[in-house]
Each structure stands twice: as C-alpha cells, then as structure tokens.
C-alpha cells in the first residue's frame, strides 16, 4: 500500500491578536502534519488556541507567521479570491452553531457552496446536494427549513453542506458542542463513517469522550501543542449508540 498523502502541513505557525494595546499570542509556533484518511481531534481548554488553529487551517483567518501547505498548495502567497476558491474546492466547514441560512430549505443550504463554483451547473448542483443529504440520512427532510429541524438534523445538514463540494478535508469546530449525548454520538457515528469512506477530518473539541472516536488526538495549551497521541482504545459511535438506554420521551 502506498504511503498516505500529506493533506495538511503546518510549520512554525504563529498568530497574534491585537486587542487594544495588548497583543495576544494565540498560537506560538505550531508544527503539525495531517495525512490523508486521518480523523484528528484538536483538543484543549478554552483559550488554548485550538479554534484559532482550525480557522487558519480553514483559510478563514490568516496566520501572522509560518508556513501552511494544504494539499500541495502553499497558503502564504494566495490572495483573497484565491483563498475563497480554495475554500470552495478543497475545504468543508462544520460550525458549532450550524450557521445555516434561515428561511432556506435544507437542499438550498447544501447547494450553497456549489453556487460559487462556476463549473457546476444547476442540474448537477441539485443532484450533488441531494446525494450529500442522502449520505447524512436526511433525504426525507430536503425541503424543510432550518427552524423545522432539530439541532442534530441541522448539524447533519451542515455536514452535508461541507461534503457537497467533495473537499480534501472536513474541518469541524465543536460540531457536537450544542448537542446532547445521543445526538453527539449520532454525529460522531456519521463522521466515523465518512472517515472510513476515506474523508480526512479535523475535529476540534474540548470533550475527551468525543475525542476517543477519532484516530489521533492533538492537545493544545497556551498556543503550543503539548501532546500528540494516537487513540489506542478507539470507540465506535454506532455501537455506543446501540448501547445507550432508549429514552422514554
């Protein structure tokens, strides 16, 4: 078997925030490599820099210093529009607060990234969005508005949206943060399945339980990586879900 391709390569990454007179060093020189097919959990307490890291990985924010190579493309030299193109083609984002467009059907929400891809025509856009919704098990909710969906369903719509452009990596920021245990397991089971199908996933969380569903944990503290380890006793979310007591309500 071939050696897995490197998707993300980060070296000497720094990020400073200027809040008034004070400069906050959120990231203080990060080196990280993520290979294709990995399911990486970035962990840490609040303020450790893990979300900042994810935003930079997602090209939503620019680093102050350091190198970031995504799927062979170096970020440093790219302009705003090129970064937008990269987000459109190579990245899928899942947010803690779902960030779905209100008063817009699940289908249209999932179609959104493809609107900004001129190569995808309307017919293909719809087909791919339907396929993505089927992949997250929401084919019967395609014409529902976000406010007609539960939190877990909304997050699955968001995951379908992150899948629809067939990204090289899915970045999830506390994707289970707003959900109860059962729904969290449902989301993790979905992500595990996607990972088994070959998707590379970077998942930010502060919950150690959730991190045990992933393949590798990277722990941040004060802008540094303090620990990196492979998950030894990996949990299977689908099985966990079966073992959960059935709720009465």
């Amino acid at each position, binding site marked *: 078997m071939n050696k897995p391709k490197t998707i993300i390569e980060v070296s000497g990454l720094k990020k400073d925030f200027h809040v008034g007179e004070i400069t906050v060093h959120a990231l203080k020189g990060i080196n990280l490599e993520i290979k294709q097919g990995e399911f990486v959990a970035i962990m840490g307490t609040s303020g450790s820099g893990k979300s900042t890291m994810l*935003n930079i990985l*997602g*090209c*939503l*924010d*620019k680093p102050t210093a350091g190198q970031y190579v995504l799927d062979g493309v170096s970020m440093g030299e790219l302009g*705003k*529009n090129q970064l*937008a*193109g*990269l*987000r*459109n*083609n190579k*990245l899928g*984002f899942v*947010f803690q607060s779902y*960030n779905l*467009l*209100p*008063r*817009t059907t699940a289908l*249209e929400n999932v179609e*959104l*990234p493809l*609107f*900004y*891809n001129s190569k995808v025509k309307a017919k293909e856009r719809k087909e791919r969005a339907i396929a993505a919704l089927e992949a997250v098990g929401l084919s019967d909710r395609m014409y529902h508005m976000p406010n007609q969906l539960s939190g877990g369903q909304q997050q699955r719509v968001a995951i379908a*949206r992150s899948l629809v*452009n067939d990204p090289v990596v899915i970045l999830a920021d506390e994707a289970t943060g707003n959900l109860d245990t059962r729904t969290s397991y449902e989301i993790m089971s979905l992500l595990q399945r996607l990972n088994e199908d070959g998707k590379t996933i970077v998942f930010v969380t502060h919950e150690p339980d959730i991190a045990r569903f992933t393949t590798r944990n990277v722990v941040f503290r004060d802008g540094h990586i303090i620990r990196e380890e492979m998950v030894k006793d990996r949990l299977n979310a689908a099985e966990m879900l079966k073992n959960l007591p059935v709720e009465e309500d």
Partner: protein
Amino acid sequence: MNALRRNKFRAFLTMLGIIIGVASVIAMLAIGQGSKKSIQDQMADMGTNLIFAMPGSEQRGGVQMGNSDAQTIKLSDVEAVERECTAISAVSPQVSSRGQVVYGNKNWPSTVYGVNEKYLDIRKYTLAAGRIFSEAEVRSYAKVCIVGQTVVDNLFGTDIDPIGKSVRFNNIPFKIIGVLAEKGENGMGQDQDDLMLSPYTTVQKRILSITHIQGIFASAVSEDMNDVAIEQLTQTLRKAHKIKENDTDDFRVMSQSELVSTFTSISDVLTALLGAIAGISLLVGGIGIMNIMYVSVTERTKEIGLRLSVGGRGVDIMMQFLVEAILLSVSGGVVGIMLGILATWAVSSVMNWPVVIMSSAVFFSFLVCSAIGIFFGWYPARKAAALNPIDALRYE
C-alpha cells in the same frame, strides 16, 4: 434574489421607505404645480391684454392727496386714448357705485359699474342672455342694465327670467336687458358675477352726479403689445393732463399681465415651499431608506461570513447584494411613482384641487431614492465582504 423571496417582510419594509419617499415628492409637487397653473389660467381668463388706468395721487396746494378719491381722469382722456393709442384696440371709461339692488321684496348689495359697450370684450365677459346696451342708450343716460349671475340668483332665483324685469338701485329703476355668463371667482377669491353693468353716462349723472371718471379700461391689440400700449396710454394721459417732463404722473397705469406675473411669483414661492417640503420628505425618506438598508445588510454580516467561508468571493457577495438593492430600489421606485400618481389623482378628484404631475419630479425623486437605496444596500455588503471570513462569521 432568493434572499428577497425569503424575507418578504423585510424587503417590503425596505421598499416602503422608497415608495413613500418617491410618492410624497410626486404628489406634493403635483399639487403645488397645479395651484400655480390654476392661478395662471384664471388670470389669463381675466384677459392678459387688459390695461387699466386709475387716478393717481395729486397735489392740491402742496398737499399730497390719496389715490382713490382723486378726480384726475376725465372723459376727454378716454377720447384721447381712442384717438391716439394705436396699440389699444378697445377702451372704456369706468365709474362705480355700491348700493342695494331691489326687486320686489328681495334686495341684494352689489356694485354697479358704469361703462361703455366695449367693456364686455375688454373684461372677457360674455352674455348668457339678452343684449348689451347701445351707443344711443349710452348717449341718452338710459336706465338699462346687464346683471351678473350672483345678482340674478339672489333676486330672481331660478324660476323667473330676469330679462325685461325692472330692478331698483338707489331708488332708481333699471330695466334688465342682459345677463352675463357666469365667470366664477378670480384668483383672489372675488366673485366676478356679483355686479351690474350700466351705461357710464347713467351712473355718472343719475347715481353719482359727477363729470369725471374713476378709471379707464382698455385692451391692447395683443398680449405682446402690452408694453407698447402701456407706454402709449401713459404718454397720452400725461399730454392730456399737461404734466411737465419732470413731474410725476397723476394717474397709475397697470396691466393684467403685471398682475399675472405678481401672482405667478406668489405661486412660484408656493411651489418653492412645496418643493422644500418635498425635498425634506425626500431627505427623510432617504435617511429611512439608508437606515433600513444599512441595518438589514449589516444584520446579514453573519450570512456574508458563511457565504465567504463556503467559497464565495468578495465580488460574488457584493454582486448579490447589489442586485438585491437594485431590485428593491427600482421596484420600490416604480411602485412609488404609481402610488404618487394615484395619490395625486385622489387629491384632485376628492378635494377638487387642480394638479399637474411634473415629469421632472417623478424622475428626480425616483433617481434620488433609488440611488440612496442602491448605495446603502451595497456599501455595508462591500464592507462585510472585505472582512476576514471569521470576523464576519463572528459578527453579532
């Protein structure tokens, strides 16, 4: 475009600002312009080539006398004008007296004007019935009169034909030989039908016992010749009154067109006032549009952040908001124009006000409101699209 469909109420509110702004400007200017035009029309109705001379102040032993009671204009002046003023086509003397007109057991206060047979043409009166007095009747101080509609209404009602009836004015019986066609109020709100016309000789001799006259009414051959006619009239009267080169006139000459221009300038002020009100409402409307556009786009900063994060370029997002703003502003402007015309029409039919819709008002208000709407729909979107996606996403 989908975003507009999804937020019908917000889109409607945004459009409302533009609709009200455009409509109010159109309606207000239409009303202002209409009243101006109606004043001009009424003035023209009174005869734009009308010229009249009134006694001016005179000096008696160094004492400056008032205007009206001077006795400086004489019948011979009328003859001189007839003879010498080539730019004047018709001329009539005028004397008048107020008094009670009595018929049977009814009476009505009115004014009798002593004039000659050309007066009707000069003042643009027409006869509804009967005839005008003849030259012979003028020469013989005939006790005949032509009455206006108001006098007819008050003395005879609708049932009696006034022609041939005899009315008494200051106890002198006058036989009615004609009735004037109704003319309505003039621009100053005076009833132009509340009058009696008699030969000037009759009024001079039988009512007032005077030999002078109180004024000369004349019409210029055409409106263009007004100034020439005024000059000729002035020179003729100065010569007739033997006024030396440097002395002031003992009479005043005025023309209807001067009055018209006075009234036009009054209504110009009115239009300017309405224009100012319209301008202010445009400003208020504009600020309203600005606010709602700015707020509704700023409120969508998070949406812009999301669109950026899934790969929308700044340009794509600006285009989207620009298209939305243009759609809202233009459709709001069109609805505003329709509403403004509708409101104008409603005012004119319900309140019976004269209105004139100005195409410049339509165009200008539409342009201003749309421009404000488009700018303030686009500008905050541009600002948000220039943010780092993460900052736009985090916007609260």
